[in-house]
């Protein structure tokens, strides 16, 4: 199956080249979204279904929505590529040679943390190693990542952008009915993906991406229930980080250190964190996309 990998990598390289080399911004954006999909396929080939799911939903889907929404608000202008100095090409070549050397040296020194992960997996509370690493062994990384997402959204709000329900770009009976029919199903899928994450690929990120799509559809279809000015929604933005750090403090009180769980409580605590994180990730991602939609600010001004 080496030809499949060669073809996939070739396509990815070609699309990456097209993306940075496009003369029109629209072309660059469309190629970038296509690149996201192919990269998700590559992650699946590399035995990383968790990353593939997240990349397809977040990296290609939501990034595409954000990019296209932004593109519509930019004045049409031709992309004028910067002329590059020969000194820069020297730097580029040096960078390439260094990377080549680094990859070669990694290849000759195989290091893996997997034996440690396998040793401690029985006391992690979940049986899927990726979820165990994310929410138990390296929980602080995941907590900080949620904080980064929250911080990015706060910064976006500080730039004067906020989802405003007084304007709806898409409306109509068909959409509203379709959303009403699809929403319970999407909720079910989100809960299933979250629950499945403890023993198989899936988890808070993938579940959060499904929730984000559901929320976006709900907001776009103008159905009542989720006004971003409501306190419950604001609490939802903060919820993931808050629950994560509160559970972390619980470990500190119990004397196992910050972000430590007792093995018999680990499953429950991880599910609690994952549920709060999925809700927060979904709300934050949906808010980011909704705030970027064209027309919202124009209507207000």
């Amino acid at each position, binding site marked *: 199956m080496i030809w499949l990998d060669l073809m996939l990598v070739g396509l990815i*390289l070609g699309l990456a080249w097209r993306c940075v080399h496009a003369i029109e911004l629209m072309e660059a954006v469309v190629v970038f979204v296509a690149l996201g999909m192919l990269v998700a396929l590559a992650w699946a080939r590399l035995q990383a279904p968790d990353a593939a799911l997240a990349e397809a939903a977040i990296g290609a889907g939501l990034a595409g929505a954000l990019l296209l929404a932004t593109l519509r608000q930019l004045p049409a202008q031709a992309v004028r590529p910067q002329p590059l100095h020969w000194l820069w090409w020297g730097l580029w070549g040096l960078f390439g040679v260094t990377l080549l050397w680094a*990859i070669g040296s990694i290849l000759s020194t195989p290091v893996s943390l997997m034996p440690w992960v396998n040793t401690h997996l029985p006391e992690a509370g979940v049986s899927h*190693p990726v979820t165990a*690493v994310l929410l138990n062994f390296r929980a602080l990384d995941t907590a900080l990542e949620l904080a980064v997402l929250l911080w990015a959204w706060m910064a976006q709000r500080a730039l004067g952008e906020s989802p405003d329900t007084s304007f709806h770009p898409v409306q109509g009976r068909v959409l509203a009915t379709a959303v009403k029919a699809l929403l319970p199903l999407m909720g079910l899928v989100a809960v299933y993906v979250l629950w499945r994450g403890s023993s198989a690929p899936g988890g808070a990120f993938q579940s959060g991406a499904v929730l984000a799509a559901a929320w976006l559809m709900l907001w776009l279809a103008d159905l009542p229930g989720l006004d971003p000015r409501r306190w419950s929604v604001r609490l939802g933005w903060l919820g993931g980080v808050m629950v994560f750090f509160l559970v972390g403090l619980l470990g500190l009180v119990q004397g196992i250190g910050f972000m430590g769980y007792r093995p018999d409580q680990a499953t429950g605590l991880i599910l609690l964190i994952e549920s709060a994180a999925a809700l927060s990730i979904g709300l934050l991602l949906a808010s980011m996309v909704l705030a970027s939609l064209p027309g919202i600010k124009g209507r207000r001004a």
Partner: protein
Amino acid sequence: MNEVVYLYGALGVVLIGFYGLARAGHVLQQLLAVNVMGAGVFMLLLALATRHTPADAVPQALVLTGIVVAISTLALGLALIRRLAVEARQAEKRSDQEALHD
């Protein structure tokens, strides 16, 4: 053996992204180039993870974290670009009005 293809593919993606970052004629394209470089780094990590059977979970978890951080970067970068466009429009409107008064 397949991971070698992805390892050197990752090198290519990072180098293309770096080239795009320097060459880009628009901030949006610069932002895309940064994300292309990020995809190359993810590919490197995931290719290294497959040297272990079953695949090493630690780099995979790192990539999952990285994907969310990358989308945060993209969202914030795009918000800054939109604000820049709004400011540019207003500045243009102001200079037009001044030209009218002169």
